[in-house]
């Protein structure tokens, strides 16, 4: 029996070798640079053409808008914002060094996500300023488009964070730049790509969506705890402080379902193993009762319970519908096999099945997992998910991300399993529990010549 941690070690070494072979180039860096270069180029073009650059009443010139990393799709990933034009800024905060204020915009999407977008504010618009090696330090204000949602499902882009409606989000970054972007190490590698901003140019940020029951949040300042109200039914808030005040360097968060039940409250407090957060407490209203979680809140009455939200691995349902799953092996080029340290021929899996349930929200998904139990097998341990809307009865055909060998002696023991995942449990929008749709062994797919 193979030790999974030994397998992981070998997998990491293979990945390291691939990186060495590829020169370490990363798509994320390219995307970041390309996005900002596009805006720089557009600003320059506008300046040269004369007059397309506007000056705001507060004195910061406006340049071209920020180009989104990818154009969102209404039926995939996080979806697209619903009624974005009507959704104004939900929370604002002063910058510690003056200048443009900070703002947070809350967006609800077609796929049941709620997102918070943070930036600087000018003329009621949210945007970024060309400083600290961003936009070529052009000093201009670049408006953020309201539909610039993160690619993929959930997760965060540079300036926007999304979660499923009914869940809460609390994001902290004690070391962000002056445009709310996390100072990701890869942006500064290789040297010369971007200069790390001096400490005086960095900010400690906390923002989030704490749901309809939160009244206020309390955060730590050098002068003691400070409490501010949250905004709207999404409970949006935004805190901007100078960097250096907080030791916690990155992300903390909590989650609770937005129902009127005190036991659903959860906020990370000072006793958290994750280090002292910026936000130290939250005050909630359940019916006529006010109560608080954490330390330093103005309301002494403690909320009755605080169950820890248990993170879970991808759900592993045990009940199977035993539906037919079709598998075909798609030969890959010799070069692709070589880069993946596989012998030739190697394959990707084309998995096909009839979807038993529809999906219209980002909270549910179909996932396909490769399962490898044969010690000398082709290791089809590849997993992926659809991350898009699906109609009930739709004929799904999806190609694996990973490559693998076909070893005839192991083909009976290696398989692909299709699961329907509903991590939040059955609801009106997604009424079915997580379930195995079906499984197909590798032996059922002969390699195509």
């Amino acid at each position, binding site marked *: 029996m193979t030790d999974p941690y030994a397998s992981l070690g070998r997998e990491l070494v293979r990945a390291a070798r691939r990186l060495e072979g590829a020169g370490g180039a990363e798509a994320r860096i390219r995307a970041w640079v390309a996005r900002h270069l596009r805006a720089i180029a557009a600003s320059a073009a506008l300046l040269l053409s004369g007059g397309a650059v506007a000056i705001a009443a507060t004195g910061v010139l406006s340049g071209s808008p920020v180009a989104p990393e990818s154009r969102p799709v209404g039926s995939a990933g996080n979806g697209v914002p619903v009624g974005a034009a009507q959704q104004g800024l939900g929370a604002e905060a002063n910058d510690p060094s003056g200048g443009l204020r900070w703002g947070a915009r809350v967006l609800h999407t077609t796929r049941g996500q709620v997102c918070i977008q943070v930036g600087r504010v000018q003329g009621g618009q949210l945007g970024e300023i060309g400083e600290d090696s961003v936009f070529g330090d052009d000093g201009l204000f670049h408006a953020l488009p309201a539909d610039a949602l993160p690619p993929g499902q959930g997760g965060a882009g540079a300036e926007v964070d999304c979660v499923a409606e009914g869940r809460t989000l609390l994001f902290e970054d004690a070391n962000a730049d002056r445009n709310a972007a996390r100072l990701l190490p890869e942006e500064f590698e290789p040297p010369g790509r971007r200069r790390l901003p001096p400490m005086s140019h960095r900010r400690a940020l906390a923002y989030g969506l704490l749901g309809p029951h939160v009244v206020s949040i309390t955060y730590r300042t050098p002068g003691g705890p400070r409490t501010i109200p949250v905004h709207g039914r999404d409970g949006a808030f935004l805190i901007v402080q100078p960097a250096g005040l907080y030791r916690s360097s990155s992300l903390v968060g909590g989650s609770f379902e937005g129902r009127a039940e005190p036991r659903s409250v959860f906020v990370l407090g000072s006793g958290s193993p*994750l280090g002292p957060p910026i936000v130290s407490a939250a005050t909630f209203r359940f019916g006529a009762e006010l109560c608080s979680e954490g330390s330093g809140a103005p309301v002494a009455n403690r909320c009755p319970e605080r169950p820890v939200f248990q993170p879970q691995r991808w759900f592993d349902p045990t009940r199977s519908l035993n539906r037919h799953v079709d598998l075909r092996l798609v030969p890959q080029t010799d070069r692709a096999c070589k880069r993946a340290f596989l012998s030739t021929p190697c394959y990707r899996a084309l998995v096909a099945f009839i979807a038993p349930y529809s999906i219209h929200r980002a909270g549910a998904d179909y996932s396909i997992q490769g399962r490898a139990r044969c010690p000398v097998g082709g290791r089809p341990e590849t997993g992926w998910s659809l991350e898009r809307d699906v109609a009930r009865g739709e004929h799904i055909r999806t190609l694996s991300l990973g490559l693998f060998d076909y070893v005839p002696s192991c083909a009976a023991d290696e398989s692909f399993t299709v699961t329907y995942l509903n991590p939040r449990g059955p609801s009106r929008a997604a009424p079915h529990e997580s379930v195995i749709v079906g499984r197909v062994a590798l032996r059922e797919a002969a390699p195509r010549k």
Partner: protein
Amino acid sequence: MASGANDEELLRAGGAKGFGLLYERRVGLVRGYLRRRIGGQPEMVLDLVAETFARALERRGQFDPERGSAAGWLLAIARNLLADAIRTGRVDDASRRRLAMERIVLDDEQLERIERDSGSELERGLAALPDEQREAVERRVLDEEPYAAIALRVGCSEQVVRKRVSRGLAALRRNAKEGA
């Protein structure tokens, strides 16, 4: 890169082989750190360990030894990933996907064996420490609580906490060498 190189050298200049050596050296530490927080969820611990090292591999060029040890950097990554997992309810796999890493899937036998495992090197080492040293090391090194906060919580001076941490770490190092 010789196996005698320190963690920081392996991370910065060890190449693929060096990273493999670093993994062998430190997987117990990271695994133990996560196990302490998650408990009996071996599949999730494996996912978090995998993503921690994948992220470290992706960003190893940015590791700065002047700001701390490689082990501390790995634990910081693990802590951030755990926080992400708590927030989103799932373990991030972005780095593994970007690196095109195959997923390690546990079968039933492996799960049982991991459950039977009496604990990582770190856990065993901590268990062997006197109570006050173990608590001081856990709070300071693993949970990164400030000395002042630890002193307040355990009811002694900061100086005493510092001594307990120092002695606890020395004992851990000593025990690790003896066990090697």
